[in-house]
């Protein structure tokens, strides 16, 4: 599951990847004609809308690409860098950049690209951008308040606006298509030449087909997660037979033993966990099973992973999903935590063992009932730190 950095591609190999991605980026920008300021500013004077076409197409394709990757369970968006929203600095910074764009004729990426093929104005622009950064750094105390004001976190647009994601995507795509049509009319008028809006060449048809396929697949086909959920929705005796279990006694023993290999995957509500926190436990939700970072827990070797919930049925469901996702090394607690509370934590010490064999169990349960509350109290006194998701660091 993506992103591949840092666990599949290490931080140093990532620098090699960065150079390769940069080569492709520079090559595409130059081939598209972004290496000349005349073509770039044509966007603002109506004689050349190449920038809008390339930029808007790229944005739409990437948007659909990311949605499709997410949809098929190949990318965990929780680990992807989402540019933070600082409303005032975004607006002020954007306006200043817009001014810089019409005066300088480049933006940072295109200036580097144009400088690489010998444009002197681009080299000057790059030099200027160093001055701009220096100015910001030196004047930081002046800018700091504006820079940090209006922090909204790192929301995605459909979270901010409340417009459902598919609708927003549809709207943005429509805006792009209308814009492509409109700018071709403007261009024709400004330049006084007539060119058809769309030329059905092999290239344009292929490009449209690739885009269309990615776009449709991200919505039309059922999401990987939904498929898995429906496949594991049915819990029966057969499921119960497939999934290894752990008795409440073994569980209590491992807890008392402070077994370093024990990993308790706790699917209870946060309230229930607060009420009865277990040692060696990690709080989990159904969604966590589909996220890359929490699932690292199951990848550790030679661990005893036990899924616990209030009742056994919930445990079976979660274990079935975990196994579908390829994590076979999971067990469930027999009877759920309800049985654990009944037979261990509230064990009736006055009961009389029915057989000779039950005497040992009776003795153990009595001991566990005595000693476990102290371990639980330790957990209660030091609640686990809230989970921090390590997103990729991005932005400029």
């Amino acid at each position, binding site marked *: 599951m993506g*992103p*591949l950095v840092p666990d599949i591609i290490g931080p140093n190999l990532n620098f090699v*990847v*960065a150079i390769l*991605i940069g080569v*492709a*980026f520079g090559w595409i920008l130059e*081939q*598209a004609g972004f*290496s000349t300021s005349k073509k770039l500013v044509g*966007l*603002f004077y109506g004689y050349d809308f190449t920038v809008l*076409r390339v*930029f808007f*197409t*790229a*944005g*739409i*394709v*990437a*948007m659909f690409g*990311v949605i499709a990757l997410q949809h098929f369970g190949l990318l965990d*968006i929780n680990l992807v860098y989402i*540019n933070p929203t600082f409303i005032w600095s*975004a607006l002020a910074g*954007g*306006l*200043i*950049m*817009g*001014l*810089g*764009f*019409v005066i*300088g*004729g480049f*933006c*940072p*990426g*295109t200036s*580097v*690209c144009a400088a690489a093929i010998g444009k002197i*104005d*681009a080299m000057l*622009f790059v030099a*200027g*951008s160093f*001055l*701009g*950064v*220096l100015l910001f*750094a*030196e004047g*930081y105390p002046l800018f700091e308040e504006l820079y940090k004001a209006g922090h*909204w976190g790192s*929301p*995605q*647009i459909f979270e901010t606006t409340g417009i459902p994601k598919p609708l927003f995507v549809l709207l943005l795509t429509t805006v792009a298509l209308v814009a492509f049509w409109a700018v071709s009319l403007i261009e024709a008028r400004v330049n006084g030449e007539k060119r058809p809006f769309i030329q059905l060449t092999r290239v344009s048809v292929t490009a449209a087909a690739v885009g269309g396929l990615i776009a449709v697949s991200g919505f039309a086909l059922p999401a990987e997660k939904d498929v898995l959920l429906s496949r594991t929705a049915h819990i029966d005796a057969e499921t119960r037979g497939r999934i290894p279990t752990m008795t409440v006694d073994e569980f209590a023993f491992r807890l008392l033993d402070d077994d370093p290999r024990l990993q308790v995957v706790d699917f209870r509500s946060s309230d229930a966990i607060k009420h009865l926190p277990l040692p060696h436990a990690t709080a989990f939700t159904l969604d966590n099973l589909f996220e890359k970072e929490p699932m690292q827990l199951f990848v550790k070797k030679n661990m005893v992973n036990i899924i616990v919930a209030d009742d056994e049925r919930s445990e079976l469901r979660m274990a079935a999903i975990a196994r579908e996702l390829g994590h076979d090394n999971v067990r469930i607690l027999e009877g759920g935590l309800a049985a654990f509370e009944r037979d261990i934590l509230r064990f009736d010490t006055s009961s009389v063992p029915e057989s000779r064999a039950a005497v040992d169990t009776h003795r153990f349960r009595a001991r566990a009932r005595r000693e476990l509350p102290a371990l639980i109290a330790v957990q209660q006194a030091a609640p686990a730190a809230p989970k921090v998701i390590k997103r990729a*660091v991005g*932005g400029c």
Partner: protein
Amino acid sequence: MNPKPYMNPYLAGVLLGLLLTATIFITGRGLGASGAVKSATVATVTTVAPSHAAASKYYNEYQEEHPDGALKNWLVFEVIGVVIGAFLSGLLSGRLALKLEHGPRSTSRMRFAGAILGGALFGLGAQLGRGCTSGAALSGMGVLSTGGLITMMAIFGGAYAFAYFFRKLWL
């Protein structure tokens, strides 16, 4: 050699979009450019004037966020790649040439000043806006980030708003 024609803009857009998708899939982050300028600037200042940098809040905050040093930065490597890629593209398409381009009614001197001033404004704005056309606008659109989309609209809206006043530079 006559320069080859530019690529179809929609094809270039699809390729760029696929590249951005691949970048996000592989690295969990988008493309960028101005961040490399920032890294280089910080590296220069901390090397040339270490005592000044140590006393300045900005450089300290930057170093806190980038403990490995300013130049060991993903964008620095990416931009090195951009230089290589653009150079190869220019070489293969016959567009390598040292020249200063300016509008028909503008002069070399005006272009000289405009490029530096524009670059400075863009550099400053990109710091304030936490990213430029690549890092905030394009990559922000790919992940549908609210902040990225706002920055994008502000950049292009701003450019259109100011374009009239600088038409003499270009038309």
